[in-house]
């Protein structure tokens, strides 16, 4: 059931026409992801902002130039649901900006209200302690996301995470985020293996995640199986190997 949703989500992204960016680039993929999310979730626009662990903003992409400017606003002002979602490591869902948002974000709220936005839904792009950025959905009318839309929005976020981890040569081709499409019995092991590989390689968590996925891809083995071998200490990653 879950795999279906992930597969359908990727098909939606693949169907989007390519933007001005090269088809295979990460930026191009994220733009198409934003465009697909905008259509599938009946929102007015979607944006992805990549962020460093310390919260410094990196690349900003969006479904369209107007949304890109809206996505940018919170980082110019230094406040907003998306920044909060990143910091709190959980979604921040604001179905109606007229309801309490002003006291929470006194500068941000009137600014994007002026741009016509009435609802914002922000989803962190993360796997446990490894964080990559935020996916934001904007809508010009107030109201909550349906349960189905919420589930699909989370899958869009997972697909974005997977693509960011896999890099541009496998953009859109690889599995969804760690754990999502793998056998559920081994989810704990998958995350345990990430922590182990982080120490084995002496790298940040995100890099360890990417290495695990790249290894599974290169060996053509399920990620869950690779993780199991790591936890059982049958497989060890070396600092010297590429």
């Amino acid at each position, binding site marked *: 059931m879950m795999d279906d949703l992930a597969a359908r989500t990727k098909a939606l992204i693949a169907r989007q026409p390519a933007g001005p960016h090269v088809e295979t680039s990460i930026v191009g993929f994220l733009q198409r992801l934003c465009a697909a999310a905008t259509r599938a979730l009946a929102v007015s626009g979607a944006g992805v902002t990549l962020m460093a662990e310390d919260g410094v903003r990196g690349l900003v992409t969006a479904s369209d130039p107007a949304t890109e400017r809206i996505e940018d606003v919170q980082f110019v002002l230094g406040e907003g649901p998306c920044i909060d979602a990143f910091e709190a490591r959980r979604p921040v869902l604001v179905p109606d900006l007229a309801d309490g948002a002003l006291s929470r974000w006194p500068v941000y709220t009137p600014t994007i209200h002026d741009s016509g936005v009435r609802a914002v839904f922000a989803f962190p792009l993360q796997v446990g302690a490894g964080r990559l950025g935020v996916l934001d959905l904007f809508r010009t009318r107030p109201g909550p996301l349906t349960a189905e839309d919420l589930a699909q929005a989370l899958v869009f976020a997972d697909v974005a995470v997977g693509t960011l981890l896999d890099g541009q040569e496998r953009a859109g081709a690889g599995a969804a985020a760690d754990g999502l499409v793998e056998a559920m019995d081994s989810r704990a092991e998958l995350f*345990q293996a990430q922590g182990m590989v982080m120490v084995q390689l002496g790298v940040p968590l995100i890099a360890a995640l990417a290495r695990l996925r790249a290894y599974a891809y290169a060996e053509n083995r399920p990620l869950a199986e690779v993780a199991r071998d790591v*936890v059982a200490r049958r497989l060890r990653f070396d600092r010297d190997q590429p």
Partner: protein
Amino acid sequence: MTTVSAERLAQVFVEVADTMIDEFDLIDFLHMLTDRTSTLVDAAAVGLLLADQRGQLEFLAASDENTKLLELFQVQNSEGPCLDAFRTGTPVVNADLAEAAGRWPRFAPRATAAGFRSVHAFPLRLRSQVIGALNVFGSQPGPSLDDADVPIVQALADIAAIGLLQERAIRRGELLTEQLQGALNSRIVIEQAKGVIAQARGVSVDEAFTLIRDYSRAGNHRISNVARAILTDPAQLSELVNP
């Protein structure tokens, strides 16, 4: 067989109320609740699963964490007492694992192999919604919960559900999603931290969890905060991370 002492039960309720006024952390709260439930009904293990937005049951906390038990929780995504309690909204009580291989062909043999004899599952109900299940395992032959225990454990499950909404602004349905997704991610952070400690100290992931839990308890830290620090700032925790 066990009958819950009224005094012990009162203590648990006071403790729960205390947690709710304090600054609230869902994972710590659920750990405490599974721990106390286990002591109250003299269970071998108690765990708690919550449904995520995709309708998958996800493990969040248990009285005891070891790899075998974690697998027992995870397998209940496809079958098992928790899935039954979650789908029907009614408790599964005193299921004899020796006779459950037909009902749960994957779950029952694994639970038996892990040393359990009986199993129970109580739905976590929030208004009209079922949002997860509380799983109780017994290691003695025969029914491990008596009739008087059942409503008590169900009450504890109901408290767990209320705990999910325990933030200042309870009004919004969005908050449940935010809380749940945050807690699920904290759960992943704990698994990642187990891996770091297991590798850095050359121990099993089960032993790693014990080290993290003991460190958190000794310093009165939240386990999710300690787990996150292990991953983001291990130098700060050198006594825990380094052998």
